[in-house]
């Protein structure tokens, strides 16, 4: 029987949230990201402290325990530059615990843009600069060089795959979205159309979302979900499958699904249940899986897909005119910012590129008070836009541009 692998991939990210920043600040204060209001959702240190306690510390301890007790357990991580910077400043012990995980040799770090940005769609030059920045940070902190790539929010199309192939990555990952796959299953290795070497791994969103979204939902018919039940699902009629790509936010563990749901116990029990359920069942990192399996088919993705929402497109970030207005204004400054050689200015401009800022401006779910509002520190998408544009205006004024926007 061919080897079957679980490819567990966890994504770690926090943006630099803007403080309440008005036109009365623009042109005067440059402390956009420095809210010190206690317990404010725009206080970045408060958020890091909270998420570190609820998720990063207990989950890293859990993962370390799993590595120690099961020699076959492996997984992949992507950690954005913006979260690493904040952890280094406010929770250096968490960075150390990530280093210990990676030093096991069984944890892969995946490449991405340092600023968790949508730069690929606006400036190839800026995009490449951010991927390089991220690579350098990973090398210096963890002593490894990424060989697999993910773009922000698993946004993906033929162009991104083509770029990653030319850049020499072994693998790229995205959503296993049915309209793209057609009758095909995400549980096999693929190759993007128009590429030569790179492999494409597709998220099994049903199995991933059972953990990431539904695990603690008591009105879900499958609740409570045990590791036994979950492994049974992987067995049933999936004997020919190669890989189960379980891709999710790292913060699933402890932050989106609280400890009280039993999420830590669930993941802790998973490796042994998986390996004892049948012969030849193991874990692989993304790059390892790309080496182990040949592609069974090409996947053509002319349109851009992401792992977000029922639409699986970019409309959560770039779905309305405010979002387009804001992002175009930001990238319109690119040449002048880069040419300024002002490293603080460049860094601030890049922090504004983080996709979360545009996500907060999304109007799709606002009226319904949807769960998405949980992720926004603002009371409305309009306030998010206003705040962002005020900061943008200050960036503009630092360039001493006189142009009236």
């Amino acid at each position, binding site marked *: 029987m061919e080897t079957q692998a679980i490819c567990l991939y966890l994504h770690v990210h926090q943006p630099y949230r803007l403080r309440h920043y008005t*036109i009365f600040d623009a042109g005067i204060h440059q402390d956009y990201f420095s809210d010190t209001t206690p317990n404010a959702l725009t206080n970045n240190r408060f958020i890091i402290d909270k998420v570190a306690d609820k998720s990063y510390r207990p989950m890293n301890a859990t993962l370390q325990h799993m590595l120690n007790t099961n020699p076959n357990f492996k997984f992949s991580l992507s950690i954005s530059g913006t979260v690493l910077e904040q952890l280094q400043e406010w929770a250096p012990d968490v960075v150390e615990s990530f280093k210990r995980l990676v030093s096991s040799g069984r944890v892969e770090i995946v490449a991405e843009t340092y600023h968790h940005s949508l730069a690929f769609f606006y400036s190839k030059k800026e995009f490449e600069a951010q991927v390089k920045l991220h690579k350098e940070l990973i090398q210096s902190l963890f002593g490894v060089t990424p060989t697999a790539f993910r773009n922000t929010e698993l946004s993906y199309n033929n162009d991104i795959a083509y770029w990653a192939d030319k850049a020499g990555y072994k693998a790229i990952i995205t959503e296993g979205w049915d309209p793209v796959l057609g009758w095909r299953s995400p549980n096999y290795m693929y190759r993007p159309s128009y590429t030569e070497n790179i492999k494409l791994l597709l998220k099994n969103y049903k199995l991933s979302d059972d953990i990431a979204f539904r695990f603690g939902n008591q009105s879900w018919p499958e609740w409570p979900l045990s590791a036994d039940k979950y492994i049974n699902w992987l067995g049933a009629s999936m004997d020919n499958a190669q890989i189960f790509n379980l891709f999710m936010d790292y913060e699933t563990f402890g932050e989106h699904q609280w400890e009280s749901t039993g999420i830590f116990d669930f993941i802790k029990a998973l490796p042994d249940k998986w390996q004892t359920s049948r012969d030849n069942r193991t874990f692989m990192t993304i790059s390892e899986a790309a080496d182990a399996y040949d592609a069974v088919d090409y996947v053509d993705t002319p349109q851009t897909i992401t792992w977000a929402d029922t639409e699986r497109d970019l409309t959560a970030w770039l779905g309305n005119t405010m979002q*387009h207005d804001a992002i175009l204004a930001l990238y319109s400054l690119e040449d002048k910012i880069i040419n300024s050689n002002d490293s603080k200015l460049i860094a601030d401009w890049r922090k504004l590129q983080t996709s979360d800022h545009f996500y907060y401006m999304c*109007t799709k779910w606002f009226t319904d008070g949807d769960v998405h509002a949980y992720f926004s520190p603002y009371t*409305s998408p309009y306030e998010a836009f*206003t705040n962002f*544009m005020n900061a943008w205006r200050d960036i503009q004024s630092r360039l001493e541009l006189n142009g009236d926007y």
Partner: protein
Amino acid sequence: MLGWELPPHNSGGLGTACLHMCKALSSKGISIEFIVPYTAPHNNINFMKVTPALPVNVHDIQLGGMAYDSYLYTYKNRTTEEVSIFQQSERYIKAVENHAILGKFDIIHAHDWLTFRAALRAKEISGKPLIAHVHATEYDRSGGKSGNPFVHEIEYNGLMLADKVVAVSQLTKDVIIQQYDIPANKIEVMHNGAETDLYKDLDADNAYKYLSKMRSKGYRVVANVGRLTIQKGLYNLLLAAKEVLQRAPKTIFLLVGSGEQYIELLQLSADLGISKNVIFTDFQRGKNLRDAYAIADLFVMPSVSEPFGIAPLEAIGYGTPVLVSKQSGVSEVLQNCLKVDFWDVQEMANQIYNVVKHDSLRDELYKESFKEYLSLSWDNTASKLVGAYHQHASIAEAI
């Protein structure tokens, strides 16, 4: 139903709210006789009976200008007399007494203090239950102070003796509890709705030619429609306007309304040096009112205390997004709008500035608010009222 005004003979949102509410009630099978304190045709109303409250010997009562000002009585012997609003609310009692004796009805539903004494008299005579509907209190009208003690006492008596009190917002319910000591359990919040059917279509040609021309030259228009009175918070709007104009000089503030603060606000805009960007139009109705809503890029309602605030919904109905104070009832039901504390001049300027600078914000705000506006139906309000009618009518019968 006892009310003080109905469109087109209204001075503000009260008449508009009553009209739309009655239309929704009548579609639920409630038959309404609406008693107003003046004589005038209401050809636009066919879903209920509108009755002028005429005391014996009075031929007709004309509104002397605005509803809140004076009334011209013409007696059957052709002599005339002008009376003040206070006198008129006294005389309204006498007229309503006749209806209470003669009329057949199950419920007395009275809107705001001007009708409360008449309503209590009708309750006394008929023994029918009274629902006191609060659209605004004296506390709100005086900008968060106790206001006229005479009016406060009429309100207190009406609310205390009513069988049920309906508040147009949670904000109003809180005021009624805190400022009038009315027990919370007899007050129910029923938000106003929006009535799209009653809006007239806009002409292609806007009445504000100057503003149309300036907009085509890149100017943006910020409007308010309301009485020029302390309750409406316009003083702060002008302070914010100063801040906006320093950064976005191509902005024009349009203030539609009249009131006792007119001279003060005019003087303030001169003192701030922004007179050429502030336009006072006086009280407007009909096309001039609709077009004022429509010409604006943003409608601002900065009220110090606004029990509900129907004007922002009208603005959205005519195509304009809104900024409202958090001290307004409408901010409890409308999500897709900008919200500020009435006292936070800087934040008000911050938000207005961003709307006049970014058409994308204006357009997105409008698009989403219009969707929401369509869902804010009077039907929900009417359903709750019908429930209250049945409840209190059956209690009355049991007694």
